[in-house]
């Protein structure tokens, strides 16, 4: 029985991390013309190589401009934004479009001359290292992904330079991802330009939605089968991080969660302490969301009682924030931030 309990406990850990991954890895959406335009056909700076890039799992040295690029996580977006077509990208199994990619990635790829559709890597179970080695890539870029030390070692042993996340897993910022990708491809200047464009986009959004500046927010997730805990994303998670870039602030209860992990649980008994100007959460169906906000225990959460909530039924609308890239952020800014502003103004949004 003990073994069985252990297995169940580890299954929980696995299931939770995969579920969290699902929350953070969601990806799809419709095309968006306002997005950071790909720096089409920018060319590499030949002096840039060899380049050595340090990540949390170890160093990687790229000897010359890589041609065959494999990406995990969101880096396919960054590579495409630099005008280069990756040969394989992570398949977006959760919320991706029918093709297993995102529309904004497809759009960026379409602007690259001679780009072919990349092979899709299914990482649901684990990173398919054998499949990647078989592709004989010049580099694997995975600045914000589920890559493990084992994966890193196996790929490195096969002679493939691997660029993993620089710090806490899943907590790489979109800027770090873009910058590092630029370094790996010898296109640091183009990367800087794209970052500047995205920042300008963020500033413009803050100006267009003045209500969000200075407003406090909690990004939460609810498990309808067990309402004893409310999951809260910490400030190291990309979702809160980007909202803070827009001028929103995290209340004390979120700061309490620390920065060691990207989420923590708060007992529903402390619902009244989850005070903020707005609460953001995921839902699956309108009925479930309605039930959620009608639950007496959860009505003790002030922003739910006051009607300052956004429940997104289509995670693709927020994925530009949860799995941020220079291509996905502009989409989320246009589609999600107005909803947040409306909720702050007292109009609850379930959509």
């Amino acid at each position, binding site marked *: 029985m003990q073994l069985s309990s252990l297995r169940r*406990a580890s*299954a929980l850990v696995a299931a939770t991390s995969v579920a969290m991954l699902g929350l953070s890895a969601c990806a799809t959406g419709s095309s968006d013309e306002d997005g950071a335009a790909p720096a089409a056909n920018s060319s590499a700076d030949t002096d840039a190589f060899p380049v050595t890039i340090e990540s949390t799992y170890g160093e990687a040295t790229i000897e010359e401009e890589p041609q065959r690029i494999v990406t995990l996580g969101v880096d396919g977006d960054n590579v495409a934004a630099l005008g280069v077509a990756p040969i394989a990208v992570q398949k977006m199994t959760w919320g991706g479009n029918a093709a297993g990619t995102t529309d904004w990635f497809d759009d960026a790829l379409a602007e690259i001359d001679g780009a072919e559709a990349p092979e899709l890597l299914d990482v*649901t179970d684990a990173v398919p290292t054998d499949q990647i080695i078989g592709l004989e890539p010049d580099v694997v870029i995975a600045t914000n992904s589920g890559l493990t030390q084992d994966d890193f070692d196996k790929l490195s042993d096969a002679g493939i330079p691997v660029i993993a996340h620089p710090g806490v897993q899943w907590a790489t910022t979109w800027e770090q991802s873009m910058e590092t990708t630029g370094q790996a491809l010898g296109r640091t200047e183009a990367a800087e330009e794209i970052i500047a464009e995205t920042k300008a986009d963020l500033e413009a959004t803050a100006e267009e939605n003045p209500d969000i500046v200075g407003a406090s927010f909690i990004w939460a997730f609810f498990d309808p*089968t*067990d*309402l004893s805990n409310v999951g809260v994303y910490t400030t190291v998670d990309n979702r809160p991080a980007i909202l803070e870039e827009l001028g929103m602030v995290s209340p004390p209860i979120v700061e309490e969660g620390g920065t060691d992990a990207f989420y923590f*649980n708060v*007992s529903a008994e402390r619902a009244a302490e989850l005070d903020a100007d707005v609460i953001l959460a995921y839902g*699956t169906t309108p009925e479930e969301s309605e039930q959620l906000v009608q639950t007496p225990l959860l009505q003790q959460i002030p922003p739910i009682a006051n009607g300052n909530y956004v429940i997104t039924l289509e995670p693709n609308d927020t994925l530009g924030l949860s799995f941020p890239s220079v291509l996905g952020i502009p989409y989320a800014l246009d589609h999600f931030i107005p909803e947040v502003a409306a909720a702050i103004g007292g109009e609850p949004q379930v959509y």
Partner: protein
Amino acid sequence: MTTTTETSPDLPGRTATAGRARTPRRSTPASVAICIAALAVVGVASLCIGNRWVDPLALLDASHPDHVFMDARLLRTGVGALLGAAFGVAGAAMQGLTRNPLADTGLLGVNAGAAFAMVAGITYVGAGTIGGYIWFGFIGAGVAAVAVHLIASLGRGGATPAKLVIAGAAVTAALSSWTTAILLMSRETIDATRRWQVGSVAGKQTDALLTALPFIVVGFVLVLGSARVLNALALGDDLARGLGRNTTRDRLVVGLGLVLLVGASVALAGPIAFLGLLVPHLVRMQVGGDYAKVLPLSAAWGAVLMVGADTVGRFVLPPSEIQVGVMIAVIGAPLFLVMIRRGRLGSL
């Protein structure tokens, strides 16, 4: 452990005397009194102790701002007591049915069967409410129980206790793998089941409780009414038949009760492990092996352990809560090891 095996004359062997080999340490009235006191203590603690202080008077005062929190705790305490009793009595009956001191519904594949069928139901049939997937719980629990028994019956000697445990472990392993496989293929299902999988008595809706309740009650009636049957089975099938019992029909009745109890409980709270194994042993240490005493006291102590563990899980790691399924294992495992070391496993 090996030293204990060699030296302790106290170690239980399987006897053919319906467990009366060991003299109980306490008289039955004293055991019942202790049990009632323990129930009262955990009941009050469960209402008063939590992640934050709530005035207990808020329970009676509907206009009190904290009334809603006390309401939730009351429901949660009730669910915990009900399910603890169900898993406790199911474990005791399972041990009697198989004449195996290590039997519990978790070990013999019943929990895993219910869980697998429900995950499959949620994923492929779209069962979304407990009223929908409770049926999958019954089917899974029943099919797994029958399958384990059939596998154990293969070969010479029929379904011996040892073969039942091996078959149960094998079926549990297979079902757990399939459950994991389904979960890996469907992230939506993972989201719906990830906490349900470890077991939780919190945040249940009243209608979910009311759906499961009738099945649990019928299960209780069938199992609690089977004390004489289990006492007879404890003598061995041959003797039981000699006493005029139809052992096949007896097994079916107890088995049906078990499937109802476990299927409904797992549907409501997820597969809570360990409790069904531990509690009957604690009870036998107190009152010996007579199922007329073991069954009701296992129900009561199951409720005590479940409510107690849930209460502890609510305050040990603020600001979050630990699910009761995890707490049971955390509290129960060391307790069980101590019992084994001291050779105090009650005989059957």
